């Protein structure tokens, strides 16, 4: 990274964003403990460098379709933090008014969506990519998926169609070594996922997803290819620091592996050391950026905490956009 370490502001932004992402996830963890968040919360702790790299390329007119592990992608897409966290906390001020929850985030204006169904985000991204094409916009459709998602039929169908139609689709695979309890190596027929791109006449590149700079460069190349030609794949290697979801006993991974990875593969820690050791940012500046990020997240968390769940009277609203209501079984009947 020495060559590119010329722009202190870039690196300040990168580090601050990655710390912010870490703090955001940590704030969500408190929501699980406080039982404000239900269902299975999936954090992306350990995967910050990829989202931060993505943030450098994704423009407002671009779209992003994400998965169950989506918070950092939302941040990369510049979804405002307050409604984002509020939705994860199921509050009425949330991005979706508390109807969606952390797996179901939708922001039409920002062309952002998520799904709790593995593989299902890819066709959605395909739709965005097709829209860009036929409306003559030069937008890119991004889909960020996990390593496990590559084995779904939806991946294949989407890649093939995007290639046939020459669509600007960039698929970023966060290969965090695991799909719940199944290791990547036990689920994939190829040693890398990047190489599968050739089955769709597309470029695929594996990159160190702990290295924000390298990842950003790879995404940049993918975006360029997407704009000019068709879909491209970036496989970014990382590690899932926590259980698959909060509450996962996570007994299927050896303690040795977990200790090794979390001590040697923390992108935030690695970047901090790199920036300090290279003299790019000094300890005081790093501390300042961390404090700033923490303060920003603390303020959002405090605000979200003070807010309410949606009023229960709303539960039957919004089933149909037209306002149609078809409640079945409203009342009993007597002879």
């Amino acid at each position: 990274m020495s060559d590119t370490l010329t722009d202190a502001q870039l690196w300040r932004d990168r580090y601050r964003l990655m710390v912010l992402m870490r703090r955001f996830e940590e704030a969500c963890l408190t929501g699980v403990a406080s039982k404000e968040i239900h269902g299975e919360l999936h954090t992306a702790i350990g995967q910050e460098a990829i989202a931060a790299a993505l943030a450098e390329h994704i423009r407002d007119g671009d779209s992003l379709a994400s998965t169950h592990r989506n918070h950092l992608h939302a941040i990369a897409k510049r979804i405002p933090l307050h409604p984002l966290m509020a939705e994860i906390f199921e509050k009425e001020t949330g991005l979706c008014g508390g109807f969606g929850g952390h797996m179901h985030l939708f922001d039409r204006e920002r062309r952002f969506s998520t799904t709790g169904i593995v593989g299902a985000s890819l066709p959605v991204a395909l739709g965005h990519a097709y829209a860009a094409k036929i409306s003559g916009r030069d937008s890119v459709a991004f889909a960020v998926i996990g390593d496990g998602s590559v084995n779904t039929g939806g991946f294949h169908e989407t890649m093939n169609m995007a290639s046939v139609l020459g669509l600007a689709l960039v698929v970023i695979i966060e290969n965090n070594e695991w799909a719940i309890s199944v290791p990547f190596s036990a689920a994939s027929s190829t040693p890398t996922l990047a190489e599968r791109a050739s089955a769709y006449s597309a470029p695929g590149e594996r990159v160190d997803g702990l290295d924000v700079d390298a990842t950003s460069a790879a995404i940049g190349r993918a975006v360029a290819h997407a704009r000019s030609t068709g879909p491209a794949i970036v496989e970014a290697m990382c590690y899932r620091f926590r259980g698959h979801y909060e509450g996962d006993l996570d007994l299927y991974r050896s303690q040795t592996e977990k200790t090794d990875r979390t001590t040697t593969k923390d992108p935030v820690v690695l970047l901090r050391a790199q920036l300090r050791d290279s003299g790019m940012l000094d300890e005081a500046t790093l501390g300042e950026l961390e404090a700033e990020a923490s303060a920003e997240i603390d303020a959002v968390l405090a605000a979200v905490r003070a807010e309410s769940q949606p009023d229960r009277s709303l539960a039957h609203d919004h089933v149909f956009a037209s306002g149609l209501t078809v409640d079945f079984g409203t009342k009993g009947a007597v002879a």
Partner: protein
Amino acid sequence: MTDTAVAPRNINISQAVAEGLRLAMEDDDRVLVIGEDVATQGGVFGSTRGLLKAFGPQRVLDTPISEMAFTGMAVGLAMEGYRPVIEIMFVDFIGVCLEQVYNAIAKIPYMSGGRVDMPVVIKTAGGSIGAAAQHSQTLWGLFGHLPGLRVVAPSNPYDSKGMIAAAVASNDPVVFIEHKGLLLERAQDFEFGANVPREAYDVPLDKAAVVRPGSDLTLVTLSGSVRHALTAADAAILSGVDVEVIDLRSIVPIDWDTIGASIAKTRSLLVVDEDYLGYGLSGELITGAIERFGLGSLDYVGRHGNPGVPVPAALSLERQIVPGTESILNAIVRAGAAR
């Protein structure tokens, strides 16, 4: 329905659907048609014929055999302001892509707290025409069970054109189920809805039609069974049963006003359903009627349809499973005798 004295145009139902789509696409360039064989071929039943020529390959897209991908595309397209019509060639194939239909298209309006609508039409063909278990289903009962979807199935040329137009115009996702046994039928062969005006019009998606008034028995059905029910109702006169035939058109929502008015007259309800009877339309109609009008409002309820059997290949067997004129007549006569 608008039946006039003018001689019906010489078109079939597929053409009526294609015309409805064409006018909708002329009117609104956000409307797209996507699916297998919809462009060059104009649909395996011809119900998208002419659209490619009129609107070009971007708005009328032939896809690979990748239902999951192109059904899910509708979500992204709708988020971008488009109004996609997705064709699933046979409704039987929905099992490969139902996920995007019920977990995404149907639920996003709700999951987004009303912020993202999904003006998507899932256009598909159902019904038995001798093509056996994997190409004969109607499955509206399946869609009806899943929240967030309007589910409609037209029975005649006039409605086919007007309902596809209304489906495209709807801001709600609509499952539009054509009947394979009807698509190639000529308009002039219909007792009802034979006249298809050339201009654009909508048939509301939530109004049932009384296609034959009667006083003794309310027969509710839809899609391909309506014409069989009419023929059976005519024959039932000989058995002394005067049947009111209601074409439901929409199974979500159900037009309770029309059904209620009929039941108030006849106090008898027979549901005829080509779909599997179990956990389906008949249970919902009978239960919903009782809920709304009281157990005391009916002297007879009955249902006739596929009793829960995969549609067999041999015609000798298919006739035992799929309601036809004769079997409907029998059901009417049984109902008449029971009242």
